[in-house]
């Protein structure tokens, strides 16, 4: 009986949490009880039908019917939740401003409760159909008898309902004026989690690439099979071993819904929206390489508005192996701070390999830095770096590169972290994989002219098959940067020089790197 109860509890729990969020979000709306009860009832009916046609669904669409059905209803739920939040963003304020209680009630009555009710229905259908199949299986096998079945089922359903009721009562303790914003955030995260599950099924149906089987593994910390793990799975879409595509869908859902909520909103909530965008972009960045051109450049999240710059970066390697003995790379970049939060650069990158002496142009890259918040406005300065590269060599692939760039100033030290994902494309691209590379810089501002510090550059390789650290590229070493003013008419000159030690056997022994830059505000 306990074994039955546990399995039923696990399935019921998810649906029950979703029902609680919907109930809390629709607090004070007339007839919400009717809608939610209707949603649950239709969900139970749907669950029985789906369970009854399990065999037909499984065989449909070349054996991928289950996956496509799950993905379809999950994305339908995401759409409904999104629609509800956009509607509330537009009308929530008007509702609150209605002077009379009657006026408020009339305004609230126009809420798209059918959207929430269908989400409840879908949640019950999804989890319910598995419960029905499981219980039917037990009944068909005649194992343990009716008491086992009914008793275990009842205990499981009651347990799930109790946890849901706990969440609902907890949410009701939130003061009314905050309740709406709390529940709309919960609905946003719920939608993102469901979209990530939808992506999971589309990958299982072989429609979408995984973009990395397991971007991280936190199962040691919080297993998805544990009750807290399952609760977080529903509430925020927690997955202990996420696929890259799940993170992309999660982040894209948050970003798109926030953008829609804001564009249609009458009263935006700026700071919180920004914070959420940053969180989701950072997680998206952690997902989203094959850097064809290693240029050992740090990209800070800072845009110098209206500043024009000419920049050169170079490197020269040292290695006992003749193939890497003296490889040379160089760039010439022209950039401008077009908007306070958008800087753009065109980069010409060339190289000369030890075993292929002519110096040749490799690629032309278009680099962009987006400042997400004004510098110093928050604890951390976040930005996005994005690059599109066109290969100039015959037979090489073009590429995208994107990811978060984060900067933290601490006293007179500055620290920058870049997490970049690169993806090849174009007629000569022969890999579908995404490459992950990362860079860290810490500088100590002794004087503007002399800032010593260190840098780390790593390339984990293709996310689909991350190799051991020995086979990844990793370099670290000391650097010095500085700048000298030439007067307001002439702008300023910046320099940088460093030596990076190769830390793995896949990296050359050492590389000298340098940087020269002239900047002027126009």
């Amino acid at each position, binding site marked *: 009986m306990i*074994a039955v109860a546990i*399995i039923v509890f696990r399935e019921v729990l998810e649906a029950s949490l979703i029902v609680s969020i919907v109930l809390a979000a629709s607090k004070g709306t007339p007839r919400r009880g009717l809608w939610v009860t209707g949603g649950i009832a239709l969900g139970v009916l749907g669950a029985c039908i789906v369970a009854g046609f*399990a*065999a037909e669904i*499984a*065989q449909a669409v*070349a054996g*991928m019917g*289950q*996956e496509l059905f799950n993905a379809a209803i999950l994305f339908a739920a995401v759409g409904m939740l999104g629609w509800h939040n956009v509607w509330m963003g537009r009308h929530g304020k008007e509702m609150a401003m209605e002077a009379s209680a009657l006026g408020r009630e009339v305004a609230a009555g126009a809420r798209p409760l059918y959207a929430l009710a269908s989400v409840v229905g879908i949640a019950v259908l999804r989890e319910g159909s*598995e419960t029905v*199949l*499981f219980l*039917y*299986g*037990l009944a*068909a*096998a005649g194992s343990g008898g009716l008491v086992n079945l009914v008793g275990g089922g009842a205990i499981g359903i009651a347990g799930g309902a109790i946890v849901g009721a706990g969440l609902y009562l907890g949410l009701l303790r939130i003061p009314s004026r905050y309740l709406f914003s709390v529940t709309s955030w919960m609905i946003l995260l719920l939608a993102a989690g469901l979209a990530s599950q939808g992506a*999971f099924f589309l*990958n*299982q*149906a*072989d*429609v*979408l*690439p*995984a973009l990395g*089987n*397991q971007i991280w593994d936190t*199962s040691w910390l919080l297993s*998805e*099979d544990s009750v807290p793990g399952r609760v977080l799975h529903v509430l925020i879409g927690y997955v*202990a*071993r996420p*696929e890259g595509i799940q993170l*992309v869908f999660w*982040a*894209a859902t948050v*970003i*798109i819904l*926030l*953008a829609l909520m*804001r564009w249609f909103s009458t009263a935006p909530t700026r700071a919180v*929206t920004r914070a959420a*965008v940053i969180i989701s*972009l950072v997680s*998206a960045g952690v997902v*989203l390489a094959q850097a064809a051109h290693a240029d050992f450049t740090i990209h800070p999240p800072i845009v110098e508005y209206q500043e024009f710059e000419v920049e050169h970066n170079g490197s020269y390697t040292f290695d006992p192996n003749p193939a890497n003995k003296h490889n040379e790379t160089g760039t010439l970049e022209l950039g401008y701070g077009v908007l306070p939060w*958008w800087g753009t650069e065109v980069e010409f990158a060339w190289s000369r390999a030890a075993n292929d002496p002519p110096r040749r142009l490799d690629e032309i890259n278009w680099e962009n830095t*987006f400042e*997400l918040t004004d510098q110093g406005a928050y604890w951390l300065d976040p930005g*996005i770096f994005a690059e599109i590269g066109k290969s100039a060599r015959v037979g090489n692939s073009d590429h*995208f590169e*994107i990811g978060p760039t984060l900067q933290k100033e601490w006293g007179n030290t500055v620290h920058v972290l870049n997490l970049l994902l690169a*993806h090849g*494309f174009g007629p000569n691209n022969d890999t*579908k994989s995404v490459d992950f590379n990362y860079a860290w810089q810490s500088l100590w501002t002794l004087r503007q002219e002399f800032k010593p510090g260190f840098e780390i550059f790593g390339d984990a390789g293709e996310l*689909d*098959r*991350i190799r051991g650290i020995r086979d990844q590229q990793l370099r670290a070493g000391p650097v010095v940067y500085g700048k000298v003013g030439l007067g307001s008419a002439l702008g300023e000159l910046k320099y940088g020089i460093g030596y990076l030690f190769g830390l793995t056997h896949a990296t050359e022994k050492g590389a000298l790197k340098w940087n020269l830059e002239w900047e002027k505000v126009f």
Partner: protein
Amino acid sequence: MDRRSGAIVLILGLFLAVGGPARADDPQFTLVIKEHRFEPPELQVPAGVKLRLLVKNEDPTPEEFESTELHREKVVPPGQQILVIVGPLDAGTYPFFGDFHHDTAQGKLIAK
């Protein structure tokens, strides 16, 4: 946020558009569910390629083939078989289980 988010959504969209399509001529393996156990309980498969796993349920009760490591969960109705596409896998061990009979239905893929 304003135009920033627009630009960023566009870039993410570009990334989403560049995905890889699927292939169908991949190696195939069969797993049989019998008396709530997987046969064979350990399956050797090649690493680095996509695989087609046929899971046949010979029991009169439904089962759900599930694996957190493989990112797969799929109901197998009684007397039916389902297709699960997995990989390309790194070399390693990937446990799977029957969600309706945890205590007996346990198995693993060993990718080499």
